[in-house]
């Protein structure tokens, strides 16, 4: 029996079409995945179901076979629809309990909050679905995974039958993802219906029953997950054949050192050692991967290399030239480029256009400016060239970075850094939060760069990414280099993942 | 405070009745520009406006005012009143001297008058300066202060070392010496007309040095002076208006400057066609333009009040010349010996 049906739903923002003629049927008690690339219109569609913005006139929404019209999220919640946003909406200094009941506090004598009955209700919910959170902890002390549970509890507390989860695993660690899958399975078992937005194919294979694919705002197909392969899903999502695993040709070992890090020591923001006596050499024509768990000094290492943070001691040399503790601009001019971990806060000025972001570091140089005056024509020419070369969409150079999808934002950064012709490119979590098509593209560009004889320093928390791209793999744990696996060791090691996991957890080679 | 309430409601009534205004060609129009204190400053701007209101009541003059927020507003405000075709435009306070002078040059047919300023022999024919013999009022309060002092020491706090304040200062000192040749003085300028905290500090210092009656001629600085006196239960002499209401048990008298009367007189002259442009009028005791406050009789023994009326008489008759400058004061001191 269908719990939710969308018929010919369309939504436009001005001339921009978010989605068009969408048909979607969600059966009661199933886990239904909504699959699409970033910017395909998934989130907008879900927000429509959650009452955040009304669709254009025309189509209809049926809940329990009844036509409904949602004017606000409050109405959606009242009808048993709940949503967990990708970015949580929690009051950080409040306790878990307070967050859950916020807005619908049970009252005693009409004005006192009845914490006791609220606590009882939440505890029974936790018991029913078999996952637990300490109700008295403050949100700001909780891990991201736990915060997500609070969000789920919040909507269960509001008696949601249909749970919408927007990119739920994008922010979780591998262990948290496993726990999350268990929660989903429990929810399903107890009869809840789950609509999950994702672009991770293995995730769909793992938990979803059926899957609806949306491409560029258009409904493509709804299919049963167990009958489809990941490859098939990916192709339908992107609209062409895609490579799920990077293809690269073997390189012959070189020993030409491009970047040399010697005895580097860096403090973190709390003035504690974050990088300790770090030594590493990046070689010409190599992708060197740095594996490690989040928070083991990767950020500080990158900040020190790019000049955003001063190192305490040690040296960094690029082609024999010392760049230790130079300013970011000087380091950049010495041909060290970077794709930052946080593209929205560090990589781009979100309120600047594509064009402006492409020349963020080089605006002072000819031909972009003369005597301090910007030459707009040159900027445009340059932007148009890069937009075409890197397939940035939309192609209008005046569009603000804020209005681009994550993949295209990353392409802008990539274009800017590669065009600068770096000797070394640091790629820090280059595909975080991107969809299959974009990941494929970024990976192929990194490989191209390596093939053209540059050194690429790939820092990633995703072991799969490290494994599929790296020629050499270094491992970092608590700020120390715990292992360095050569090309040969990588190809000879049958249990590579386990080996790396061992080093990542602090085992010393 | 009740007094203020009455004034306020009077203004309100006036403004209400004016809102249905009609123009009579024959009625005289007189406007005034306040200085930055504004029209409700509890001081000379307010006093001036009260004078104009009296001309409206008694003589049927059409009146208006323009408040200045900054010194730079003076020319614009004078011009606004000029454009409103006033027969006479008042500038209240010596700060407006330059602006009035310029306006008078540009509009030679327009009549102007200014309070507390004299252009001397350079007065344009369309400008009337109005000065007060403040020293005469100050002399009387100095006499009272000296007589009332138990310590034989009185204090003077001036706003700034300018001629107008000097006339208060030397008039006061002359009166005090006239009453008691052995009286001692503490004198200081606050270098401000607005800093009440400074006034309080200076007054406390003077009290510490033994002065038990303190006279201030320092605008809002005096609020602090009176506050200090009230706290220490000493005596104060107010200025410009009857300031007894600020500390009814401590302000024994005030050296009043009846700006309202002066304005009334000038407007009355204007009505009679005897406006004395090109000159400076000095109003004194005999014009009722300076005086001791009406509340004085409540605060001092009646013997002293009798002294005061005798002194007033000799001043009006010209038998007693009151010094307004330091050199005149020196001569005065010699004459006492």
């Amino acid at each position: 029996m269908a719990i939710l049906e969308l018929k010919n739903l369309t939504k436009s923002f001005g001339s921009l079409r978010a989605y068009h003629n969408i048909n979607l049927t969600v059966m009661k008690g199933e886990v239904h995945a909504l699959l699409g690339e970033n910017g395909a219109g998934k989130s907008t569609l879900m927000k429509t179901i959650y009452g955040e913005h009304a669709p254009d006139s025309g189509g209809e929404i049926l809940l329990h076979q009844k036509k409904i019209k949602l004017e606000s999220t409050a109405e959606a919640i009242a009808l048993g629809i709940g949503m967990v946003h990708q970015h949580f909406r929690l009051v950080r200094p409040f306790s878990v309990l307070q967050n859950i009941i916020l807005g619908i506090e049970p009252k005693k004598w009409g004005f006192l909050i009845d914490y006791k009955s609220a606590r009882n209700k939440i505890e029974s919910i936790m018991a029913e679905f078999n996952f637990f959170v300490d109700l008295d902890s403050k949100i700001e002390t909780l891990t991201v995974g736990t915060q997500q549970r609070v969000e789920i509890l919040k909507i269960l507390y509001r008696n949601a039958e249909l749970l919408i989860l927007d990119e739920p695993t994008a922010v979780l660690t591998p262990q948290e993802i496993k726990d999350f899958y268990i929660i989903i399975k429990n929810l399903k078992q107890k009869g809840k219906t789950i609509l999950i937005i994702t672009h991770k194919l293995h995730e769909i294979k793992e938990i979803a029953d059926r899957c609806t694919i949306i491409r560029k705002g258009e409904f493509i197909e709804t299919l049963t997950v167990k009958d489809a392969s990941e490859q098939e899903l990916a192709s339908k999502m992107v609209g062409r054949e895609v490579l799920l695993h990077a293809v690269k040709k073997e390189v012959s070992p070189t020993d030409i050192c491009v970047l040399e890090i010697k005895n580097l020591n860096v403090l973190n923001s709390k003035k504690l050692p974050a990088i300790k006596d770090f030594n590493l050499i990046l070689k010409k024509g190599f992708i060197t991967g740095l594996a490690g768990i989040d928070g083991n000094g990767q950020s500080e290492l990158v900040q020190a290399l790019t000049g955003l943070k001063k190192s305490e001691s040690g040296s960094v040399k690029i082609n024999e030239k010392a760049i230790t503790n130079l300013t970011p601009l000087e380091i950049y001019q010495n041909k060290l480029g970077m794709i930052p971990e946080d593209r929205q806060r560090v990589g781009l000025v979100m309120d600047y256009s594509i064009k402006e972001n492409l020349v963020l570091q080089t605006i002072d140089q000819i031909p972009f400016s003369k005597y301090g005056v910007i030459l707009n024509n040159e900027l445009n020419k340059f932007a148009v060239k890069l937009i075409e070369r890197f397939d940035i969409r939309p192609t209008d150079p005046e569009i603000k970075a804020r209005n681009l999808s994550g993949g295209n934002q990353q392409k802008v950064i990539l274009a800017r850094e590669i065009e600068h012709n770096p000797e070394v490119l640091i790629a820090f979590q280059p595909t975080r939060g991107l969809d299959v098509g974009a990941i494929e593209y970024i990976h192929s560009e990194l490989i191209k760069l390596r093939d053209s004889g540059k050194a690429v320093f790939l820092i990633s928390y995703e072991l799969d990414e490290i494994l599929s791209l790296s020629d050499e793999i270094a491992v970092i744990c608590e700020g120390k280099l715990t292992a360095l696996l050569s090309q040969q060791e990588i190809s000879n090691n049958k249990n590579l993942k386990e080996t790396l996991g061992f080093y990542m957890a602090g085992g010393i080679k | 405070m009740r007094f203020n309430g009455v004034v306020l409601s009077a203004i309100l009534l006036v403004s209400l009745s004016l809102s249905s205004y009609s123009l009579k060609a024959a009625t005289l129009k007189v406007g005034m520009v306040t200085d930055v204190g504004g029209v409700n400053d509890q001081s000379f701007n307010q006093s001036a406006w009260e004078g104009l209101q009296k001309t409206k009541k008694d003589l049927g003059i059409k009146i208006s005012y323009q408040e200045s927020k900054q010194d730079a507003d003076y020319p614009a405000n004078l011009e606004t009143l000029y454009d409103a075709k006033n027969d006479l435009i008042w500038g209240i306070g010596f700060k407006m001297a330059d602006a009035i002078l310029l306006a008078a040059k540009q509009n030679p047919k327009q009549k102007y008058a200014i309070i507390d300023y004299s252009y001397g022999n350079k007065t344009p024919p369309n400008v009337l300066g109005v000065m007060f013999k403040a020293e005469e009022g100050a002399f009387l309060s100095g006499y009272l202060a000296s007589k009332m002092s138990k310590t034989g020491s009185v204090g003077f706090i001036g706003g700034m070392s300018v001629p107008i304040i000097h006339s208060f200062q030397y008039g006061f000192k002359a009166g005090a010496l006239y009453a008691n040749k052995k009286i001692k003085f503490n004198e200081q300028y606050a270098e401000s007309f607005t800093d009440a905290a400074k006034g309080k500090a200076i007054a406390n210092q003077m009290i510490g040095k033994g002065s038990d009656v303190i006279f201030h001629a320092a605008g809002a600085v005096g609020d602090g002076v009176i506050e200090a006196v009230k706290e220490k239960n000493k005596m104060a002499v107010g200025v410009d208006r009857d300031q007894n209401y600020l500390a009814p048990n401590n302000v024994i008298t005030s050296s009043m400057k009846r700006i309202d009367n002066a304005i009334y007189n000038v407007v009355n002259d204007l009505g009679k066609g005897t406006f004395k442009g090109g000159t400076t009028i000095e109003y004194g005791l005999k014009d009722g333009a300076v005086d001791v406050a009406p509340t004085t009789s409540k605060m001092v023994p009646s013997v002293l009040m009798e002294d005061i009326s005798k002194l007033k008489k000799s001043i009006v008759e010209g038998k007693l010349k009151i010094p307004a400058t330091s050199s005149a004061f020196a001569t005065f001191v010699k004459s006492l010996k």
Partner: protein
Amino acid sequence: MKNFLVSLLSIFLGLLLGGLVLKLSGINPLDAYTVMIEGAFSQPNYISYIIIRSTPLILTGLSVAFAFKTGLFNIGTEGQFIVGALTATFLGFYFNFNPWLQIPVVMILSCFASSLYGGLAGYLKARFGVHEVLSTIMLNWLALYLSNFFVFIEGFRRPDTETTEFINQSASITLLENWKVSESGMAWLENHTFWKSFLRPPFNAGIFIALIMVFLIWFILEKTTFGFKLKATGFSQLASRYAGINTNLKMTQAMMISGALSGLAGALHVMGVSKNVAVLAAHEGYGFDGIAVALIGSNHPVGVLLSGFFLGTLKYSGQKLQSALEAPSEVISIMIGVIIFFIAIPSIFNWPLKILSRIKKESKQ
């Protein structure tokens, strides 16, 4: 464009509510607005006064807007104005060169002094992380007392007054200042009533300099690499630092330029209108008004130009209510306050629009 509409709507609502305030104080709003419109535009000298009044507002507005583009809220315009005015008076009095040298020297050095003063707040922010709102508020008071201190220096203070000496004639930018009160000038003006009226106020070259500054600031922000980096810093400090922009330096520079603009406002005010400075009991508000101007002008140089004129007109014509209708001058302040209030919370307009669209929808069904 949307900002422009919001500003217009806010102004309209402000006038409406201002009218209500007038009504409550017993004055017919229509009469009042008639007085204001006539008092603003019916004679050439009114226009002249509006221009004079608007000049410092445009510059302080520009000053606030410029700092804002770099992500800084410069509340210190008031203090920078004072420093500029004081410096201009000081130099205008002690120097006496040929006007062609005197005027630029006085003007530029005044800007320089106030730019250091503004830059101090920027430096404190960049170096020690002191929030510019706090430091500039304190610097405002420091400037006020500093100015009062200087006014009382013997030799600089004009004897027997609470003001300084006047600047030398050579530093004056008032147009035709001597000519218009000379005999030949007055004779000529007698036959040219428009100019007679227009030149009666101290009309000065300040507005032309302000217009040049509007263009210059627009040019810097939109066309130069310097402006590019300033704005980048304002949008995202992290990204700018990563991109090799010295954000600390940019913040200090932005505050210096912002300070220079406010100081220029003060200098032009002295050189064109007041010719000296007086002891201040409280802030005169030229700088604070600049915040309102920037807000109404949505921080765009051209918007600031328009809103500067608007506020100048409002402030000038509002005063006319006093003598004409005996309206309290506070009414005009309330009206301006209401306008700024509406601009500060533009989302308030979404609310009636939402209701409107809902009514539309329901009436369709």
